[in-house]
């Protein structure tokens, strides 16, 4: 009787292991296809941008020409949140979610909806940064999944963000800042009083809060035990380091 139960248990374990292995194979296949597609998509974007600039000689109208493709591939990246949620990619759902949402916000709620900022240089700046970062990132994932990682991709992945991250932040911040006067004047995406639900929303102030949120967060608990400012300064520096590392880990 006991051995019968045991046999049953062993059999169940084997099918479970087989299920796990098959699931991983499907997951790997899907992720490979996904990452190849995204690499290709961002390459297409890069090529389109270069072609436009070579043909027209100006960046005016560049955003409009690539807007649809950008919207498609950037929005498609929402799938990555799903990947984390079901566990086939080992990253925090929240970190991925925040990153993808901030990109989608820039594309849909700033660049695409506020026409007047589309010809700003800052838009080109963040577009270039995003393109370089995403091509590197997705090709890195693709090569990893295929177990053949060229050194230069690995190098690019771990080193370019040092330059790309601040440049991207500058591009995005400058774009939002440029959008502010138009938002204020048009009152877009805003809800005023009086209304039946007694709530209001001001997109202008919301954007200002968004800009402030780019500052690396430092917890403002009073540093009671540390009397010297030197210690406080070193704490701030280590906090910035932690933030850089978190981003590093995210990109990983």
């Amino acid at each position, binding site marked *: 009787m006991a051995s019968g139960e045991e046999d049953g248990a062993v059999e169940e374990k084997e099918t479970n292991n087989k299920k796990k292995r098959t699931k991983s194979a499907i997951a790997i296949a899907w992720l490979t296809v996904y990452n190849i597609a995204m690499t290709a998509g961002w390459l297409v974007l890069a090529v389109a941008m270069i072609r436009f600039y070579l043909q027209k000689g100006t960046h005016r109208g560049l955003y409009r020409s690539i807007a649809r493709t950008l919207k498609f591939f950037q929005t498609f990246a929402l799938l990555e949140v799903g990947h984390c949620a079901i566990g086939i990619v080992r990253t925090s759902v929240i970190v991925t979610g925040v990153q993808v949402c901030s990109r989608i916000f820039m594309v849909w709620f700033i660049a695409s909806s506020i026409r007047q900022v589309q010809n700003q240089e800052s838009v080109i700046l963040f577009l270039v940064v995003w393109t370089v970062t995403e091509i590197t990132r997705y090709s890195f994932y693709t090569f990893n999944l295929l177990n053949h990682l060229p050194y230069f991709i690995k190098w690019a992945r771990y080193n370019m963000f040092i330059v790309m991250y601040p440049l991207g932040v500058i591009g995005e911040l400058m774009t939002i800042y440029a959008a502010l006067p138009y938002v204020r004047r048009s009152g877009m995406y805003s809800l005023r*009083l*009086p*209304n*039946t*639900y*007694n*709530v*209001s929303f001001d997109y202008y102030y919301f954007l200002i809060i968004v800009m402030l949120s780019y500052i690396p967060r430092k*917890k*403002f*608990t009073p540093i*009671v035990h540390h009397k010297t400012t030197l210690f406080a300064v070193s704490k701030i520096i280590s906090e910035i380091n932690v933030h850089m590392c978190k981003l590093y880990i995210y990109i990983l």
Partner: protein
Amino acid sequence: MRQCEVEILDAKTKEKLLLLDKVEPIATILDIKSMFHKSNQRWYPARQSLCLDPKGKPLKDEDVLQMLPVGTTATFYFRDLGAQISWGTVFLSECIGPLVIYLMFYFRVPFIYAPKYDFKTSKHWVVHLACLCHSFHYVKRILETLFVHRFSHGTMPLRNIFKNCSYYWFFAAWMAYYINHPLYTPPYYGEQQVKTALGIFLFCQLGSFSIHVTLRNLKPPGSKIKKIPYPTKNPFTWIFALVSCPNYTYEVGTWMGFTVMTQCVPVAFFTVIGFIQMTVWAKGKHRSYLKEFKEYPTLRSPILPFIL
């Protein structure tokens, strides 16, 4: 009686922090913490976490030395919990803030709304009612903190006071701004809606108070024995038959009443977020009840009867 030796090591670095000899076997963990405090003034007992294992669960203050699985030489691992603050202090500051802040908006203190509205109260009677209800709710909470609640843990980490106060104070300001705004729109269904909502609000406030009193009467002062709460003669406590944490249930009900009464989205937000947080707490409490008592009634749900 044989005396014991107690050694306290740092949980992370394993360095020897203190060696106490001649410790009575009937000494409690709290006694040992007090002795540790005497030699390290910085670490008062509430800040100390002593465990038998570097990665283990902290020992309770009332645990007696001779009842623990240690020989005549006990080794404890110490972890600093950080600056602590008493629960009572946190609760009071959480509640006094919203009380004062809401009244500032109600009386239209300058620099909030346009100058022509300064110190003039709203013309809608529901706004006066809402102020009464909101203030009543927080006064009740303050009085309960002072006279009814018995906190099982003495303290919590200091940073919690900033977190908790920011949450309560921010939402109080946000909802008070709209309810007391000159352009406030009264509820769509008028008097009927407000009266129904007031009924729900008062019912749930009475319920909440009954539950708090029942929980207080569960154990005599100073006793740390856990007991299962049961329905009493008070009808408001009959909900114990279906729910583990009816205090949270009644609290959600209170805020739903207030939302309907004021018909204000920020209040709805506050209600939803509060509901989510209280559900998490209720589930945790329910789980600990189930772990502690094998005869725990199976009909009970954490916060919503049969649902959640």
